[in-house]
């Protein structure tokens, strides 16, 4: 499973362009108002949310998968397909992942009112809590990663995987204000996102082939 943890980290790094475009606004606008430690707390809250989600999803699916034979491997096929979808989304070839994002919508609607509670509060607890809320924003990249924690086989593994993913998002979010203008432009450029999207698709297809081999559908 270590290789999957590493892949989750890479996935987040590859998706940096996406992160900067989507959440760069929050991070950038926020960074102007708080100091670095406060910003780190905010992001830590976000990663905590990811880790919790990873543990929940990982644990739940481990239970479900135990019922069927080859359950986890079959889920892997789905995870691979989600990754391909994410690659297509990142490269702006196909926006199917928007439907997946809709799944998170009800949860977010319920959490959103809480955000107002932490508005303008700058205590570390409040910042951490606000960060945790941030972590539940509907996001295609997070859901692709979650689909991987679903096949991780256990709650701790799922949590670890999502934690690694969260670390991968840090450079683009935490460093938003510090990243040079050139690097930001590179990350956001369509060419870069398409290249990363293509890499995601290949990785997805590769795991798909491996999974299919394990299921003995391919030789």
């Amino acid at each position, binding site marked *: 499973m270590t290789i999957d943890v590493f892949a989750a980290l890479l996935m987040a790094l590859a998706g940096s362009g996406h992160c900067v475009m989507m959440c760069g*606004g*929050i991070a950038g606008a*926020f960074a102007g108002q708080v100091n670095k430690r406060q910003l780190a707390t905010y992001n830590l809250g976000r990663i905590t949310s990811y880790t919790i989600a990873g543990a929940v999803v990982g644990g739940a699916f481990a239970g479900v998968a135990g019922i069927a034979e080859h359950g986890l491997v079959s889920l892997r096929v789905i995870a691979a397909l989600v990754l391909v979808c994410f690659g297509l989304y990142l490269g702006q070839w196909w926006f199917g992942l928007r439907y997946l994002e809709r799944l998170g919508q009800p949860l977010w609607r319920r959490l959103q009112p809480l955000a107002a509670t932490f*508005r303008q509060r700058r205590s570390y607890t409040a910042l951490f809590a606000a960060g945790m809320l941030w972590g539940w924003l*509907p996001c295609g990249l997070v859901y692709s990663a979650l689909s991987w924690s679903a096949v991780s086989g256990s709650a701790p593994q799922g949590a670890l995987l999502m934690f690694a993913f969260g670390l991968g998002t840090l450079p683009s979010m935490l460093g938003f204000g510090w990243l040079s203008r050139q690097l930001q432009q590179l990350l956001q450029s369509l*060419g870069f996102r398409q290249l990363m999207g293509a890499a995601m698709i290949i990785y997805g*297809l590769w795991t798909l082939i491996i999974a299919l081999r394990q299921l003995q559908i391919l030789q």
Partner: protein
Amino acid sequence: MSHALPLPPPGQCFHCLQPLPENGGYSVHLGGHDYSVCCYGCQAVAETIGQQNLLHFYQYRDTSNPLQVPLVPDELQQLEAYDDEQLQQQFTRQQDNLRSISLSIEGMTCSACAWLIEQHTRRLPGLVNVQVNATTERVQVQWHPDQLRLSDILKAIAELGYRALPFQSATQEQEFKKRRRYFVTRLGIAGLATMQVMMLAIGLYFGVVSDLDPQLRQFMWWISLFMATPVLLYSAQPFYVSAIRSIQAGRPNMDVPVTVALLSAYGASAYATVINEGEVYFESVAMFTFFLLVGRYFELLARQKAVSAAANLVKLIPAIAQQELSDGQINPVSVSQLKPGDIVHVYPGATIPVDGELLSDSTAVNESILTGESRLVEKHQHELVLAGSLNKTQPIRVRVTATQQQTVLASIIELQDLALSRKPKLARVAERMASKFVVRILLLAAATFLIWTVIDPAEAFWVTLSVLVATCPCALALAAPTAVTGAIHKLNKSGVLLRNADVLQVLPEVKTMFVDKTGTLTTGEFVLQQRHYYATARQAEIDAVTQALERSSNHPLAVPLQQLTEHSEPLTQIKSQMGMGLTGKWQQQGGGSVTVRLGSLRYIQQWHPQFEPRLPDAQVFLATHDTVLAEYAVGDALRPDTQATIAELQQAGIHVVMLTGDKLEFAQRVANQLGISEVHANCLPADKLAILNAAQANAPVAMIGDGLNDGPVLAQADVSMTFGHAADLARTAADVILLRNQFSAMTQFRTITQLARRILRQNITWALVYNIGILPIAMAGYVTPYIAAIGMSTSSLIVLLNSLRLYR
């Protein structure tokens, strides 16, 4: 916050600026207004931003350009110093209300950079024209100074990660050196490491045969890893930079597969070393980098050679001039401080620092820097002397008409830059092909990887790597630029200036060449060609009479007859008869005066109705009432070597046609002399255009003519050429300017063009054959990574060496 936030262009998501889905997407309510967003994600983020009171983010971002991020680093502020008017005068040219400048760019790596800069700067309001030259690493910008500041242009370029500063030739040499050193150090390290790693690799190959001790094997792997690391991290840097730029521009170049191949080969080998299992290919990493760098280094040298040929010109202009002050004192000043109208002194043997009007009587100058012609040129009072030419004989005084960027020399250099930046079609095609090729290679490599994962997962990675390395279209990308710069360099050396590099491709296809007569085939000056005397003994007297009469005429035919002899004869009562000639009273030495007539045959035949001229071409006759004294044939002087050149062109199968506004009789005579069979005389510019148009229907045509008067005709021709009267360069309309006033430059031009085209075609053919040929072999898994590296490098080196033939 009641006022609306700035909106992005229609059809884009308010939050992330990506395209909205077809159904219009979703909406978000912020600060009392509704905005369209593309997805729930953006909706949620936008709402969060609103709730956190962070709406100023939307207020101050630049929505016109998704690449833009609203932050201005401090160092960019320094560029504002260049907005100083006085400073700008030193390196900008003002034309009407437009200003233009040549900027040198640091950090350019490939044509993607050029594209990126062009696209990015074109958005600036008030920018009229921007042309990036990837070869010379220079940008020509034209802008409205009242709408846009120079520092804004510099900042826009800096935002992309390049450093743009006004071009100054003095710093160019340093830049070149810096650039060469950049490559040499990287090349040196790659070379040393490659040798070491190869030696170890050979040991390992043999070791495989004779069962190497596993511990020793791992030790050798670690050493190789140690050696290959600086190659990967330091030597290969140029490829990463170029790859990143090209990805940013959305036009992946060949450095993308190179980067992918290098990083993955190294990564996999390092992984194998750490877990002590599998295969290592450190020698391929080192070798691939080394060979690629060799290729780039040669390319750089070739480019610098072409560029410095032009830049050397400027270096020769002195920076200090001897200004004559109003009190007559002479004071050395910087050329940049001189204004039109100032007077400068130039000593014999010194280079003239400015364009100006000669105030002294005469001098001889060497204009070889401008024309490549090293013969001395006589200059008389009020004639123009040009910056960069060498004053040879007299100390002279010159009234300044232009300095620095406004001089003729500067415009020659600008023309060369322009030619280098306009790539011929074939080169553009090759470039586009290389770019498409890269995308396909990446796709094919991905397919190879997936297919091999199905067949044999253990091999998949290495086969893919070989595909990436072997098919790297380096040769294809090098094919055109090296040949084109080579050709331009060689042409410049022989005094042929190109404005448009497309000519290189079109000229060999030209089947018909139109030539203008006056000023092209001929020098445009009338000379005495033949004369005949009916009283041979009195030659000197007769010439003196003719001369005396002609001196009161301003007919063009009179000019060569005004300086016939030292002898003089007294003539009185000289009168002009409109359209006929001149008459006067000749006081003969033997006493007695006689009325003489000088003029056309008709005029003389009034006195001598039976007279038939001896010379078929004679137009001017001298007679008394009793007898005809002499006849003169005056004609256009042919340009030297015209005859041989025309013959040569005709031999090469080119149909030469004369187009002239002159009378048929004059035109026909020149045509007969040169063996030109098709002559169109009495042509108005519109007639010339019609004739040329008709011929153009069949095949491309070339026109060689007077750059100033034949403007429209030249513009219509597929290839237009003119002789360079250096002073008029800026106004001329031709694609090609023959700076040496020799017709034979035509032949050289043709030969070089044909050679260049042949080399260009060979290069592209070879590159395509290699790349397409190796692809299936590599995909089938028959090529190991290091064989692939050798194959790729050999193919690029072949292309480079082929292009270098042009520099001989």
